[in-house]
């Protein structure tokens, strides 16, 4: 399962790509595979505050729903509008066109608590079997 090295991960399978004071957030390839066909993604509005470890949205497959947890705290500065019509992008390209929100981080130190790609790869290895 693809686990890009330049990202950091939560135990709840969200990833974050940091660019300066901002972070782009999405769901890992492992998580989308476990969920199956994603049919709907509920995202916060631009300007909303998110808190590390708290739910910021919901991802739905045909017969399940899961909360999305923020890896870091901050303010939402962008959301991926195209997921409204094409939620399948989360399945097809979880680290690219399947991104969900972009956050202006208020406490960048929170990044230190997240997993590296290696640690995350290991955690899903053991979870998988």
């Amino acid at each position, binding site marked *: 399962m693809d686990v890009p090295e330049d990202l950091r991960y939560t135990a709840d399978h969200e990833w974050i790509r940091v660019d300066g004071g901002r972070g782009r957030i999405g769901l890992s390839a492992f998580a989308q595979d476990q969920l199956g066909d994603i*049919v*709907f993604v509920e995202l916060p509005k631009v300007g909303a505050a998110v808190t590390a470890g708290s739910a910021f949205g919901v991802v*739905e*497959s*045909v*017969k*399940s*729903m899961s909360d999305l947890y923020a890896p870091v705290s901050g303010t939402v500065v962008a959301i991926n509008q195209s997921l409204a019509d094409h939620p399948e992008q989360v399945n097809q390209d979880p680290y690219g066109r399947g991104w969900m929100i972009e956050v202006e981080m208020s406490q960048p130190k929170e990044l230190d608590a997240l997993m590296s790609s290696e640690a995350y790869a290991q955690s899903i290895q053991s979870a998988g079997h």
Partner: protein
Amino acid sequence: MLAALDISAIDDLFSDLPAEVRLNRALDLPLGMPEMELDRHVRALAEQNRNLTQLVSFLGAGVYDRFIPAAVGEILRRAEFYTSYTPYQPEVSQGTLQAIWEFQSLVATLYGLDVAQASLYDGATAAAEAVMVAVAETGRTSVVVARSVDPQVRGVIRTYARGRPLAIQELPLARDLSDLNALGRLLSQETAALVIQQPSFLGAIEPVAEMVEMAHRQGALAVVVADPIAHAWLEPPGAYGADLAVGEGQGLGVPPSFGGPYVGLMAAREGLVRRLPGRIVGATVDVDGKSGFVLTLQTREQHIRRQRATSNICTNQGLIALAATVYMSLLGPEGLRRVALLSHEGAQDLKARLLALPGVSALGPAPTFYEFAVNLPRPAALVNQELLAKGFIGGRALGDDYPELGPGSWLLAVTEKRSAAEIAAFADAVGAVL
């Protein structure tokens, strides 16, 4: 079978019931009856009632004595429909699923809105669920309900609201219509929904477009309780901006059955679809590309979302929604318009005859459709009693639900089933007992 299970008596299969909880006596119920005796027994109960085929009724108040084409009953008798359950396995439930999808299409079209769901228990619970949709959508906790909305509907909204911190305010009447000045004062930035009824419970055509606009100005959603028969002619709620339309579908091919089962209708604008309660059917294709139908957007529902579901409802009113679907298909636009117009003509005739009687006055000047209210010079309940002796079921005495209208206030409904002769005879009978 007992031998296969290696037991000697069926009671061994109940050995896991602790002795202290067992019912160690026979049930205190009558002995069973063979079918012939049962048939006689239940028929005897039916015969103790005087039904609408024996009495001539002008009673409505939300439930109507309408004509049901024979084909509706024939389709409902198909065991493939009535002995199936919720379409969990769509491959062997296409009949039910397609019928629901057609129901959704007909209801959405009737109400002039984008989507409809698969039906609710009745019109009253549909209205209460619509209020919950508005509360969830707006995040607000105050609701304004017009007093001109059916008292049963208002009662159920109040009960549903007991679960949460929800304030319900009543919009008073000004004679026969809702008081728009009061509405202006009641609506605020705290208002989640305005609930109004068209035609009103009192039969009047309300200025709904203006009321919806007033609600929207405060950011509240507008929920319109809309009678499906009258809406053969009336502007559909979607056309004047209602966010949700709900209604009682009993008039669409369902007998009154002493209060149920009925079917609640609900349609909404597109943006609210993920907040709708209950089942929704969508079109799709199978692995061979053949078109078919499935239950969809199921993550809204209790079996997946559990405590976060938009409602706890499981099923819809499948068979009753099917009756309505068959009825709407048989009537089409022309048939529904004619049923509504026949009812309206009869009501206008009766209204004119009653208003010509000494001491009888209209509740107000607003136009009415097939139901209307008048003031009698005597208590309506007494008039009803005397009419019953003459073979008529009179109108609804409004005094209990609307003390402000007085004991003489009386709500009458005329359906397509009432002949000109019955109307004339009824008016004469009323004249005789006043």
